[in-house]
């Protein structure tokens, strides 16, 4: 495990990178990769490699083969046609390259299993860790490493943060990365591992579990290569940090004829669900849930109970939020007599003091503040859901600033629900960039609170 943990460090924090298949032709994958390294301001040494014997590529001295480079190479990114990959990997071995990412496709995913096995065997002979083939590689905004062959103008780059995302699929990987860029939270590591010829889910989990910059691990998987090892690793890592998994291929159950009732009920997807439950993995059922869960885990403390107070400046949304709580096995707490008395003193007479606390459409930052002052110190309130409808006359940037103030100093979780258009969006961005998770619907917020509670319980009960 330790061995493989180090292996990722050469990929994530290389002092020198050879880009094999780099090109002056902007249509080539190798061109985009080199260009992205340059654009990101990568501080290490870059070695473009192209068989065509170019003098320079993108104004950097080029090499005909990796064996011609006489310096240490921490990482070789290979973007050449599949059939010449075995030869290139062999040359990397001879040049004592420390790690390899094979971006090229055309292996097991199109049936070329033998070619893939051959590449694996060569890398193994030299004992070089390999990511891929058929993958996007890695991105680390801290070290400015980015092997993704996606032109910069087509994808927004996430900021530095605590969420790491690993994806078997490059397509899901790049679309989620693009979506993450629009969220308040940032990225620690991105790993697209494709056909997993060498480094697989288990290695990635171990690496991210030990990575101090990673607070939340998010995975998109279709299947795992080493089932039991994955489960054991997940059990261990879950105790340290949350793992959110989106599993593709959920609907293949019962594809083969089963002889027993047990086998007909318990298909392969059901087995995965059991693994997730037993190892504390939080399952996300959509790309949207990946983002919704990531931001609550990234920013909020544990949620020890299921009693959620709702504070709202709109009655109907409060009712919907109450339904959403109970749909997710969460509950409204009872307000204590002292809380009721305190709230009666600070709320205007039009406010009926009970939960959900509907503070009416004219509620301003002072009213939000007064309600939070009381609720944050109530023992029987485990978390607070604040519904801030910015369409109302009372809500403006001062409300957002108030929620940021309480959300960042409170010991219990706080989530905000703010559905709406551009004015709302601006305030959502304000709050999210300060670490307050904001949701577009009470249902999303309740579901996120429910998984936070579930994960907390898993850790407490272990």
């Amino acid at each position, binding site marked *: 495990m330790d061995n493989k943990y180090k292996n990722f460090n050469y990929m994530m924090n290389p002092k020198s990178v050879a880009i094999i298949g780099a090109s002056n032709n902007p249509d080539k994958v190798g061109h985009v990769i080199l260009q992205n390294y340059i654009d990101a301001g990568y501080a290490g040494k870059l070695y473009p490699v192209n068989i065509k014997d170019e003098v320079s590529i993108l104004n950097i001295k080029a090499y005909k083969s990796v064996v011609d480079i006489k310096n240490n190479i921490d990482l070789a990114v290979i973007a050449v046609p599949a059939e010449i990959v075995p030869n290139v990997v062999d040359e990397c071995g001879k040049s004592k390259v420390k790690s390899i990412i094979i971006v090229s496709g055309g292996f097991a995913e199109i049936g070329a299993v033998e070619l893939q096995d051959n590449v694996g065997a060569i890398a193994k002979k030299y004992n070089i860790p390999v990511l891929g083939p058929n993958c996007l590689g890695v991105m680390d905004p801290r070290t400015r490493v980015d092997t993704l062959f996606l032109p910069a103008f087509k994808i927004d780059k996430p900021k530095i943060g605590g969420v790491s995302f690993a994806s078997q699929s490059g397509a899901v990987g790049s679309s989620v990365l693009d979506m993450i860029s629009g969220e308040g939270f940032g990225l620690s590591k991105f790993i697209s591992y494709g056909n997993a010829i060498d480094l697989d889910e288990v290695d990635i989990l171990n690496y991210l579990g030990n990575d101090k910059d990673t607070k939340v691990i998010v995975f998109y998987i279709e*299947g*795992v290569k080493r*089932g*039991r090892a994955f*489960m054991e690793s997940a059990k261990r890592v879950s105790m340290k940090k949350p793992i959110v998994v989106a599993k593709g291929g959920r609907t293949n159950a019962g594809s083969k004829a*089963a*002889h*027993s*009732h*047990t*086998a*007909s*009920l*318990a298909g*392969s997807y*059901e*087995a995965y*669900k*059991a*693994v997730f*439950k*037993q190892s504390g993995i939080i399952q996300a059922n959509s790309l949207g849930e990946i983002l919704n869960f990531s931001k609550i885990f990234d920013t909020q403390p544990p949620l020890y109970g299921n009693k959620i107070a709702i504070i709202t400046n709109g009655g109907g949304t409060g009712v919907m939020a109450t339904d959403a709580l109970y749909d997710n096995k969460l509950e409204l707490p009872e307000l204590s007599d002292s809380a009721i008395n305190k709230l009666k003193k600070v709320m205007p007479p039009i406010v009926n003091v009970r939960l959900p606390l509907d503070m009416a459409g004219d509620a301003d930052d002072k009213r939000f503040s007064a309600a939070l002052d009381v609720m944050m110190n109530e023992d029987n309130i485990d978390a607070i859901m604040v519904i801030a409808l910015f369409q109302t006359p009372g809500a403006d940037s001062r409300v957002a600033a108030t929620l940021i103030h309480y959300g960042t100093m409170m010991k219990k979780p706080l989530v905000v629900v703010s559905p709406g258009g551009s004015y709302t969006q601006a305030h959502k961005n304000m709050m999210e960039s300060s670490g307050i998770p904001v949701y577009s619907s009470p249902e999303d917020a309740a579901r996120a609170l429910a998984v936070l509670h579930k994960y907390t319980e898993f850790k407490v*009960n272990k």
Partner: protein
Amino acid sequence: MENKLMDYMKAKELLSHYNVKSVDSTYINNVDEAINFSNGNPIVLKVLTQKALHKTKSGLVELNLISDKEIKSAYDRLIKKSMQYKPYKILAQHMVDYKSDNIEIIIGGRKDLQFGPLVLIGLGGIYVETFRDFALRICPINKQEALGMIDELKSGSVIAKNKHEKEMIVNILMNVSKLMTEHNINELDLNPLILHDNTYSAVDLRVLI
């Protein structure tokens, strides 16, 4: 995975080795042996064959036989029906007293290619696949996980009505989990396993190896 049905009495013995009880059963070779086994109590006769894994569907089960006459005519019917399923054996079992509050559950196991042995509990009987109310875990499971399985079922409070029943089911689950872990079994069904009179009886079992 190739599946071979384990001999019923061997499967019964294997389960009892793991403290999982199933109803008294014996192979019979003729009517007199069946009548002797009954000894005036209601019995069930079943035809066991590799060629028909779903006994009820194939009409190979005769329930609630008490008098000598009932036993004889049921035996004759089964012999006639099972001509096409040779080779076969006929199993006689004591019948669990029918009560309206008896609950039928399924407890089972399966070997997953990726994760190894699994253990399952669900609302059982002939409607298992209709209601699909079941919980699944990777073996081995601990007590807490077994309790979690019962709590996860929609029918959890119907199946385990009190602390004693919960404890009893938890023990079966942990024992089946142990069995699945220690033996190379592809599929295992205890269905139905009838909960009655503060105890349980597995009235049908199927082990595929």
